[in-house]
């Protein structure tokens, strides 16, 4: 059976996290949604992706040998076609015959034989799924759909625990200083080879497992509370890593972090609180950058996506920060903030606006285009090349395309604030 994972326009409800990646590359628990879909799919032979056109070149580049947006993949084999927004932590339990599964109105999975596939339209994966839904029986399966950014935050703690159990590892294979301790069940902790735990570190497993991957270094005066996953070569540099965090690989994180997902190569080195937040790759949060994750009236948090405001239904939601964004010292992010990719935020003493379009500077309390796209790109090249992960031509083209895609929402705010500045 061939596995097909798809991303489409519905992933735009996951902005700003999906500007530069398909939904199935979003991290939750120990790894990505796509990794979990692959594990849940069992023994498949061959894999293909369908993604938004804007992402095709970068996804192809990152996945050598995998067909991307090739409609031929929708025929010729038995197929398991899965929406990349699906969160699944156990093997798919599917009947023998052809079937589809839905989440609300969305057809999120189709299992079809090669013979059935031959009768379905293969022009696009959306047409294929719609036709499959009309033709085949619908089954109930144990999945969650990550339709909005906050869904990832809400489901992260239980996903870390499920991934820890699925991994089946515990014990200390790295170096743990005798003056550090595991507080709680020791079998709910795994310290991988090459990990280094300094004196006075407390790993609290009372409420969930802690998995410290290879090459992780935990510096003195750090408390790591489970459930927690820390990815390869990440440094925890002191502070409180509270429950529900997935961090790394190759991050440097300190201060207070709670129920947050931080993609690779991002840093939050200093003091400051990050809670119920999702941070993209190559982000740097300056010292004392802090987000609110609870409103003073305890009401449900709202988040703006694509010009619309959505009620998250949760009272605990922090911020969503796109890839390559940088914040200055003392930046204050409001409850339910959405910050686009490649932004540069400079603190003015007041909380930032809740919606910050990609590639914008926020400077002296005003939106600005700053030194422009070329300057942002130069900074991104500098950041990535330091880690020997320099941007490729496809990455640059994607950034240019997203810059254009976000231009209208950005220009409107920049012009408004620039005119206001001249009237002062």
């Amino acid at each position, binding site marked *: 059976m061939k596995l097909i994972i798809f991303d489409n326009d519905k992933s735009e409800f996951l902005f700003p996290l999906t500007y530069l990646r398909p939904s199935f590359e979003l991290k939750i628990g120990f790894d990505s949604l796509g990794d979990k879909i692959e594990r849940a799919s069992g023994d498949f032979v061959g894999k293909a992706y369908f993604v938004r056109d804007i992402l095709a070149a970068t996804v192809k580049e990152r996945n050598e040998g995998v067909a991307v947006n090739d409609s031929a993949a929708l025929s010729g084999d038995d197929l398991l076609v899965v929406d990349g927004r699906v969160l699944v932590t156990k093997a798919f339990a599917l009947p023998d015959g052809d079937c589809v599964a839905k989440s609300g109105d969305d057809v999120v999975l189709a299992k079809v034989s090669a013979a059935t596939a031959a009768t379905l339209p293969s022009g696009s994966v959306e047409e294929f799924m719609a036709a499959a839904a009309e033709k085949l029986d619908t089954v109930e399966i144990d999945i969650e759909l990550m339709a909005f950014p906050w869904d990832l935050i809400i489901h992260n703690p239980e996903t870390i625990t499920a991934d820890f159990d699925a991994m089946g590892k515990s014990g200390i294979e790295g170096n743990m200083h005798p003056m550090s301790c595991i507080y709680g069940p020791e079998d709910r902790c795994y310290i991988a080879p090459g990990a280094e735990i300094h004196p006075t570190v407390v790993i609290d497993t009372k409420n969930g497992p802690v998995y410290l991957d290879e090459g992780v270094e935990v510096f003195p005066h750090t408390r790591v509370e489970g459930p927690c996953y820390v990815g390869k070569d990440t440094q925890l540099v002191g502070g409180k890593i509270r429950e529900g965090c997935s961090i790394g690989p190759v991050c440097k994180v300190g201060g207070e972090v709670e129920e947050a997902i931080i993609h690779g190569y991002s840093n939050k080195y200093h003091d400051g609180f990050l809670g119920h937040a999702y941070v993209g790759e190559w982000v740097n949060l300056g010292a004392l950058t802090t987000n609110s994750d609870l409103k003073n009236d305890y009401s449900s948090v709202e988040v703006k996506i694509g010009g619309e405001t959505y009620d998250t239904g949760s009272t605990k939601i922090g911020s969503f920060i796109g890839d390559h964004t940088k914040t200055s010292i003392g930046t204050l992010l409001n409850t339910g903030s959405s910050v686009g990719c490649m932004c540069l935020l*400079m603190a003015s003493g007041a909380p930032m606006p809740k919606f910050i379009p990609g590639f914008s500077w926020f400077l002296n309390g005003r939106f600005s*285009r700053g*030194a422009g796209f070329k300057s942002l790109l130069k900074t991104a090249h500098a950041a990535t090349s330091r880690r020997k992960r320099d941007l490729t031509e496809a990455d640059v083209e994607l950034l240019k395309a997203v810059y254009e895609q976000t231009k209208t929402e950005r220009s409107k705010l*920049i012009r408004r604030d620039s*005119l206001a*500045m*001249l009237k002062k």
Partner: protein
Amino acid sequence: MKREEILAKVQKITATILSIDEADCTEEKSFTADLGAESIQSVELMAGFDADFDIEMDEDGALSCNTVSDAVDFIAKYV
């Protein structure tokens, strides 16, 4: 737009953003060395010129304007 009109606007915007007298913003003055613009204010000057003239200047070119006169000549290409 005539050069003197552009100059008058540039002087007014510069004075507003840098909080200095308009009369000090003569053509030969350097934004940084003479008028005291810091790097962040250079960005604000560019934003101010963009907004007031309703143009979108090339960032590299705009930020390489050293003097008031340079800015006037650069903006003249857009208006």
